[in-house]
């Protein structure tokens, strides 16, 4: 990303933002509420196009505020379609996030944190080099936070790239970036 600037609702969110992440790179984006962290991630994912500057991003997984988990379907049924992306099995991904005992309950009956874990499990399917995580620690317990750290570390260890917007800290070695207008 070079010279990235974005204005939303007549208000300048950020300008002249530069960031380059190579293989194995991990960056935490910090900033006050409303400073444009989520917008930055949506721009990188290709879900928001009203910006100026240049963005080059690898094929990515995006985990936003909304988990992308359908309440009517069980966690396994939610993940099955993403097996088509190529690598990984939905079953193993569920086991990795500790939901193997909940695979058949409708996701609507799961807690917020458990639904977040289903969203995290999706990252393990399809082998996308870039992960865009928007507040991944929300609603997760201590165990869940450790899980996120481990997932991010192993992804970066394998040459993947992680860009994460958060108010807390992931706890792994990451470049810290601050968003300012």
């Amino acid at each position, binding site marked *: 990303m070079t010279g990235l600037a974005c204005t939303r609702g007549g208000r300048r969110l950020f300008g002249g933002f530069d960031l380059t992440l190579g293989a194995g790179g991990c960056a935490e984006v910090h900033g006050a509420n409303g400073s444009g962290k989520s917008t930055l991630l949506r721009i990188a*994912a*290709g*879900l*928001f*196009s*009203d910006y100026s500057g240049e963005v080059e991003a690898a094929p*990515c*997984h*995006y985990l*936003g*505020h*909304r*988990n*992308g*988990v*359908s*309440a*009517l*379907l069980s966690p396994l*049924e939610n993940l*099955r*379609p*993403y097996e*088509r*992306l190529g690598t990984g099995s939905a079953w193993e991904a569920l086991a990795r996030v500790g939901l193997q005992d909940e695979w058949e309950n*409708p996701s609507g009956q799961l807690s917020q944190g458990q639904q977040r874990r289903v969203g995290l499990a*999706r990252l393990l399917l*399809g082998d996308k080099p870039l992960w865009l995580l928007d507040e991944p620690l929300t609603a997760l317990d201590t165990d869940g936070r450790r899980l996120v750290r481990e997932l991010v570390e192993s992804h970066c260890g394998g040459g993947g790239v992680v860009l994460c917007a958060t108010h807390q800290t992931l706890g792994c070695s990451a470049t810290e970036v601050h968003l300012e207008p």
Partner: protein
Amino acid sequence: MFAVQFRRDWLSLRRAKDEAINPLVFLFLAATLFAIAFGGEPRRLAGLAPAIIWVLVLLANLLSLEALFRRDFEDGTLEQLLLLAEPPFAAVLGKVAVQWCMSGVAMTVLAPVVALLLNLPLAVLPALMLGLLLGTPALSLIGAVGAALTVGLRGGGVLLALLLLPLYLPVLVFGVSATLDTMAGVGAAAQFYWLAAISAMALTLAPFATTAALRISVEQS
């Protein structure tokens, strides 16, 4: 991708049956009201029945379209579909196909009951059902474009109707005239060809337009 999305949406549909059945109940109830209101003049009703049935099918279809993308939009599944489905329009087509099964196909199957209520001659029934089967894909496909554009708006229902009803008019006109011409003993092949042509054109263009409209809605959220 089409098959994957179709299976997924079919499963969701089976988990939320009540929602899926609502438009069909509306069709049946409204037809019953017409039958009661015209109670004294069954013969006049027979002449109006094709128009009544087609208008009700149009409105029932609108009812089911409103919910087409709503849930996926709210829980974020739609973002994932646009990001990860390869290609997204195939997945969109899968969603529309499920909606068509629950509106177009189901209403075609229900048509004999409604026709009986409205005193439509049995000999015309095949023409009515064929017309519905050929015309409803266009309703679902064109409707999906409107549903995709309004999914992010609060109270998008009225806007959806305003947007779609003008586009539905050709299907309505040819559908009703096919049934009426068959009733009058004139062949209606031309109208059936027209309905099929409209549906075929919608099938080639609408999925791309729907995907583009969904992108706009997701960007605005």
